[in-house]
């Protein structure tokens, strides 16, 4: 039983970080209907940013997100403005290939610049934990979970309470109608991709103290992001949050009871089932 609760709690905590990755992807998808294959690579860029802020300027990873978020936003906006905006009306497979190409460029540029060495970011609390009812809880994961909640709340406020946020949501609901209403769709796309990138970057920053960093680290997370996004309902932020936590739990608990090798199979089977029976996702309403 202890094993069960132990895996449940670590699943929930790691799920928080997954949620951030998923939310970023879901915003991009919601607004542009583009599947961003470079999402994991954005996360990787965020990791490297965090790593260098920490090793060169001695800024704590959890504090450095104040720098990472705006930088990644600008980077995402740049990518959108100069690359992705140009294929908004292109065939979907061209959009996919463009993001794959961008991802390759990112990971290989980083490799040339910093070699493909593994980098480990060690903080004083990287492997610290505390006990609650005999269960060990990782301190850095708990902090990152808390930060995830705060960021999600702010995002909500932004999307529901501000004009720009409303415009983004309108674009996500119906691109054509939004355009007719006088919403600058291209600008909204830029903001959306910026947001997506900064969320991916933040996830990278949050995971950096407990994980390791290398140029190809993104691919694992790209696939995970897809699963989370679909699970929650493409375009739904609450959905992505829940989807992230759910995937965290499925991986963690499934790893124990079905075998850690099989857990990927379970995750993807769950993913397919959701796609089939509720293609709009657990909480999604938008149709395509």
């Amino acid at each position, binding site marked *: 039983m202890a094993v069960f609760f132990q895996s449940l709690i670590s699943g929930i905590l790691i799920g928080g970080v997954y949620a951030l990755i998923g939310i970023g992807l879901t915003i991009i998808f919601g607004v542009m209907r583009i599947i961003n294959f470079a999402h994991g690579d954005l996360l990787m860029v965020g990791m490297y940013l965090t790593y260098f802020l920490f090793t060169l300027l001695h800024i704590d990873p959890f504090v450095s997100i104040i720098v990472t978020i705006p930088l990644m936003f600008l980077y995402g906006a740049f990518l959108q403005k100069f690359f992705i905006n140009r*294929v908004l009306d292109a*065939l*979907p497979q061209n959009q996919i290939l*463009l993001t794959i190409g*961008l991802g390759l460029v990112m990971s290989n540029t980083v490799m*040339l610049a910093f070699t493909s060495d593994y980098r480990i970011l060690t903080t004083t609390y990287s492997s610290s934990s505390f006990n609650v009812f005999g269960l060990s809880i990782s301190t850095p994961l708990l902090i990152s979970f808390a930060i995830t909640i705060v960021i999600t709340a702010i995002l909500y406020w932004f999307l529901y309470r501000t004009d720009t946020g409303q415009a983004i949501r309108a674009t996500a609901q119906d691109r054509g109608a939004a355009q007719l209403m006088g919403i600058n769709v291209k600008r909204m796309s830029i903001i959306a991709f910026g947001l997506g990138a900064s969320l991916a970057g933040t996830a990278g920053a949050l995971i950096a103290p407990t994980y390791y960093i290398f140029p190809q680290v993104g691919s694992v997370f790209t696939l995970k992001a897809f699963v989370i996004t679909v699970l929650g309902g493409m375009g739904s932020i609450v959905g992505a949050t829940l989807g992230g936590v759910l995937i965290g739990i499925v991986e963690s608990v499934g790893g124990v009871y079905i075998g850690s090798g099989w857990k990927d199979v379970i995750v993807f089977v769950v993913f*397919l089932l959701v*796609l089939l029976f509720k293609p709009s996702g657990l909480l999604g309403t938008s149709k395509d």
Partner: protein
Amino acid sequence: MRLFMHNMRGMSVFPVLLTVAAAAGLFLLPNFVESTYALHIMILIFISVIMGTGWNILGGYTGQYSVGHAAYFGIGAYTTLILMQYHHIAPWYGAWVGVVVAVAIALVVGSICFRLRGPYFTLASIAVAEIFRATALNLRLTNGAEGILITDIPPFKIGNTVITDFMSKVPFYYMGLVTLIIAIIVTRMVQNSKLGYYFQAIREDQDAAHSLGINPTAYKNAALAISVVFTSLAGSLYALYVGFIDPSTVLALDLSVHIVMICIIGGIGTIWGPAIGAVILVPFSEALRSNMIAQALIDSGLISENSRIGSFLKDQLSHAHVLIYGILLVIVILYMPDGILGFARKLLTKRRKETI
């Protein structure tokens, strides 16, 4: 040109002659080319063309953008090798068993996934391929992560004469070439048939097609089945040729992406698109990988090997080839969204307008 372009049923003499001549040339090629390296590249090109042509039926003509075709490539590869290694069934039978298995699985997958559209279908196709990859990684049947290593391919005999013992590359070359030609002929037949029109109707507007009485799921499955036959054969050929398979090489997302890439670079929904894509992409990425550009520059005497640029090119460019590949990919998508064929066609019409 016009004269040849369109006869009654889209058949014309000139292109057919050209194609036959090209095919004949390819058949004779191994007699003239001694470089096995060139043959190796040709075989890789053939495998790519077969995969691409297969994908093109589903992705190009029917508009279902699967990014999970590695699943069927892997099924073909695994079935052939499992039957050969563990049950001593010759690969030329095994490959067909592979086709049957792949098609059967594809139809199950298809009848489930084709309820989804657009990006949802794409994601579902990725998920299916990942399920196969993760399963192959954990099954005893597939020997898990250790993969399957060929010990010996039995010689191919007709009666008592040994046709080939598979020691050289030539048999693989011909297997690839024949499959490729069949794939292209099938594409042509599909394009000019009722089936092909239905496929394209679904691609253009699924709902309209449905209201005209075309059952989208049934026809999408038909397209998938045709597509999978060639993907699976390509997988079998790859497995026999390379002699070793494991989940991360024959069931990987990379591979699915590579298949799509070939078609897009060439031009999707066209008969020759995948072939052109493969002919460009495979040698080009090979030249990049083995740093031939730098070597050529040095050999030509333009840049001295010992100069700073020379040593930079020689040492560093070998690390940068994937980066260059990525940059080119971005450029192609941005400036040639319809692939090389589409781009060439656009140039032609432009010129024609100018001359008029």
